[in-house]
Structures are given as structure tokens and as C-alpha cells.
């Protein structure tokens, strides 16, 4: 016994979502079935709206309104000579919240991960290289501090060996408000390696 085809179609579509298995897909589909018609229409419209109005920024590949630049790339007060390369759009928000960066971004939409089949050609690396024709002086590689992030940073740092271009990485070390004695030894080791001189 299988579901009526229209319901089965929804279950199948939902089942493709990341982190949603067949059981969750079923549960969500049944829940949607029970909702008032206008609620479901609103959901369908919002999805349609998102896809038709938004795509990726022509410059930095962040999410932006179709056919244009994202607000950051469009803002001429931003320093166009510094590019902060991140893995995903939420990382842009995270760096923005810090208030410490006034340049522009580049979103790769992933990091190297052979296990998940993510190779360099599936990342927005070509777009980044093209941007180097402009007045770029520094590229900051800002990835998660894990095996895949480190490998991507190393890969890009080799690719970006262009005369006059500085390639940097954020310092890694102790979190503000963190306790020294609870720091893991790798973090503490890196923090000490990258120490800053206070008095000479």
C-alpha cells in the first residue's frame, strides 16, 4: 500500500533535504496535509519567491538579489582591496558581527572534502581568481579550524601565489573569556606560537 501520488511526491521531495530522512519526510508531509490551504500556499510562495528573487552575488558569490551585487559588494565604503574568503554565507554574517572587517567577502560554498566528493572545481575558486585582476592587495582565508578547512586554506594559499598579493589567515588562539587551564593543548600551543609581544 503506497500513498496517493501527490503525497508521495511531497515525501520524496522532503526526503532530499539535508538531515531529513524518510521518517521525518513523512511526518512533515502529513503535517502539511493537515494545515489550512492558505498556510501551505504561503510556504510554496515563499519558496518560489526566494528562488526567483535571489541568486548569488556576481562578485562574491554570496546570496544576493538576482542580477546584481550583494549589499556588501555594492557598498563603495567597503575596502575593495581586501577579500575575506569563507566557506558559507552564514560565515559572512559571523565575520560581519565581529565588526573587525571592512573589506569584501568571497563565499566558496564549501571546503575541500574528498569524502563528500567536494573537489576544487565544485567550489567558487575560479570566481575568486578572476577577482584578483582587480585592485586586490590581501586575501584572508577564514575557514573552520578543522582538517578540511586547513586543507582548503593550504590549497588556496598555493594557488594565490601572485606577486604583490598578501595571503593571510586569522590568528587562532584562546577564546575571549576562556579559561587557560581548560584550553586543549593544540589551541594553547597555537596561541603560544602566534603570541604577541607586549614589551620589548
Amino acid at each position, binding site marked *: 500500500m503506497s500513498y496517493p501520488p501527490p503525497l508521495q511526491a511531497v515525501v520524496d521531495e522532503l526526503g532530499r533535504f539535508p538531515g531529513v530522512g524518510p521518517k521525518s519526510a513523512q511526518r512533515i508531509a502529513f503535517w502539511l496535509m493537515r494545515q489550512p490551504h492558505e498556510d501551505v500556499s504561503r510556504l510554496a510562495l515563499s519558496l518560489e519567491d526566494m528562488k526567483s528573487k535571489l541568486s548569488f552575488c556576481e562578485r562574491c558569490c554570496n546570496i544576493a538579489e538576482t542580477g546584481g551585487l550583494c549589499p556588501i559588494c555594492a557598498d563603495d565604503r567597503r575596502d575593495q582591496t581586501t577579500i575575506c574568503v569563507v566557506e558559507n554565507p552564514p560565515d559572512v554574517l559571523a565575520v560581519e558581527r565581529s565588526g573587525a572587517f571592512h573589506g569584501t567577502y568571497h563565499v566558496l560554498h564549501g571546503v575541500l572534502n574528498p569524502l563528500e566528493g567536494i573537489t576544487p572545481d565544485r567550489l567558487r575558486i575560479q570566481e575568486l581568481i578572476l577577482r584578483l585582476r582587480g585592485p586586490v592587495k590581501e586575501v584572508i582565508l577564514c575557514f573552520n579550524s578543522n582538517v578540511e578547512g586547513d*586543507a582548503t586554506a593550504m590549497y588556496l594559499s598555493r594557488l594565490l601565489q601572485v606577486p604583490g598579493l598578501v595571503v593571510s589567515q586569522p590568528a587562532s588562539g584562546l577564546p575571549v573569556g576562556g579559561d587557560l587551564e581548560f584550553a586543549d593543548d*593544540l589551541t594553547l600551543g597555537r596561541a603560544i606560537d602566534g603570541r604577541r609581544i607586549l614589551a620589548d
Partner: protein
Amino acid sequence: MGLHELTLRNFRLFSEFTFTPDHGAITVFFSPNGTGKTSVLEAVFALATGSSFRTSAAGDLIKTSEQVAEIHGVLFQQTRRIQVDLVLTKGVRNTTKKMLVNGQRPKSRALLSEVLPLTVFTPEGVDIVRRGPEPRRMFLTNLLTDVNPNTADRIEKFDQVLVQRNAFLRSLQGDTPRTTQQKELDVWDEEFCEAATHIIEIRLQLLEKLRPLVTNYYHAISESSLDVGVLYERSWQGQLRDALRDALHHDMFRGFSTVGPQRDDILLTLSGRDARRQASQGEQRSLALALRLAGHELVRHERGLDPLLLLDDVFSELDPQRSERLLQLLPVGQTLVTTASPLPSSMNPSAIIDLSEALL
């Protein structure tokens, strides 16, 4: 440091079983075969490591015809009380494990070794000398984290890099890498070498400390003065980077890395003979015991605490003299012993538990 209370539910033969071993003393499980003695030790081991020392199929741990097995342990660390819960649930294809330490998911293996370091003696323990390199590498890895829980991060990092490099090799599908792929491979190779260097460094440091202890224990157990060698044996020669390049052709076809710490071994020798192949059974047994005792001693010395000792049916494998000598060498601390035969005369357990009653 040790175990205060253990509760098993639908674990192996047990429907429900609770026991509270004495702190800093010996508890003996003495009952006929097939009454679940080893299962109790297995449960303690699972609490400390998240896996079994008997089986790799976690589903085997769940009582037949039941769906969920639970192990609950109350541990103590000086005045700290730690609750560890392990729940195994049978799924359609595989068994899921859920581990909680004081109600929280542990962040890494490090936390587990920090909570309950263990030393295990089993009849299969001699495999560490006799069999292939896996049990020896596992011994090194467990001992590293028991001696210094912080090393778990490095071990984990190496494992992750290895998995990614192997996935990359498989993605080549046996073809020589194109230029862009070669650039990517270079990156994984460099990450691999860096992580590998850390692992080898900490392994060498550990063996340096372990070597004199193994020698002493071997001499004490076997009452001989043979020259004992404990050497790190690399799976390549020269620079790792070059070895990776030389092995690439091979590795591409196999889809995994054939050189590196994941393939290294410990060379054990007695008077220059390779103990893995050229030692008698008695010598191998003594050497296996000496390795475990040395590891136990090292954890005590470096961390200032007594790992919980699990002795699973050890005395049936040893002649009475060796059993007595082993008992003399064992440090005092909390100890759980299983046996189906009478205990060596010099053992003074604080409690003897007959499990055949627990199964009723």
C-alpha cells in the same frame, strides 16, 4: 578513581544486574562457564571506551530478543561523582550507541580516558605479541590517551586526514592524477605528513618511557634476564613525503594509504629474536603480560592514579608460578577478576560474586 556502581539492563545474558565493587580492592566473579562473567567486564570496558573487547558487532551486546541494552555506571574521581550511561539500540541495519557522561554527550575520546582509564588482561591478550600489528597499534593508541588524554585530539586529527586522503585516492579511480588533482593531492599529502609526524613523535616518546618498564616486568615474570627490545617499526624508509610519492601508484589502485603511522608496528624482540614469530608460547605470554603491566605502571606514574584492572580468566592460561608472580607484580587498586577455576592462593579478594544467581 574507579567504579562505584554498575547496572546492566538487557546486556548479553543479563535482564537486570547491579553490583557495587569495593573501592581499591579486588572483586572476584567466580561461577561456572556461561554465566556472564566476561560480560560484566565487557560492560565496564564499554563504559570506558564505548566499544567491546570481544566483538566488533555492537548488536551482540544486546540480549537476544530485546531491542535496547543499557549500561549505567557511577564512577568516582577523588570526590567527584561521574555518571556514565551507554544505551545500545538495535536498528534495522545497525546498532546505535548513545553515550552520556553526566548527562552530556562526551566531546571526544579524551574525556572517556580521562574518566576511567583501564588495564585489561584477557586470554586473547597474547595476541598483542603473536598476531598482526593491529592489536599493538591499538595498545599504543589506548595507552597514549590513558597516559595523556590531551593526545586524543592529535590522534583524531590524524584519523580524519587519513580518511580524507583515502577518499581522495579512491576518487582517482586508478588514474594518474591530472594537474589540478595533483595540486589537491599535494595538500592532502602535506596535511598527512604533518599529522603523521605528531603521531609518531608521541608514540616514540611513549615507547621510550615504556621500554625499561617492559624489560623489568618481563624479567620479573619469566625470571630470566633476556634482552628485551621494544622498537618502533615504520612502514616506510627515508622521508614520509617521498615514501607517499613512491607508493602513490600502489595506493591509487588500492584506494587507501599503504605507508604512514596507520601501518606502523612495534618490533618486540627477545635476545634479538623477533618475538612475534620466533618466541615460544610461554615467552610470548610473559611478554604480553609485561607490556600490559608496563602500560598500567606508566599511567599510574604519569597521572598519579590507578587504572581499573580487569583480569578476565587470566589464571587458567598461566602456570601456578607465573600466576603467583603476576599477582605479586599487580599494583593494588580496584580490580575485577573473573575465574571459573580456584584462585591463586595469594589473592585476597574483598568480595566474591556468584553470577549464576544473578541470571535467575
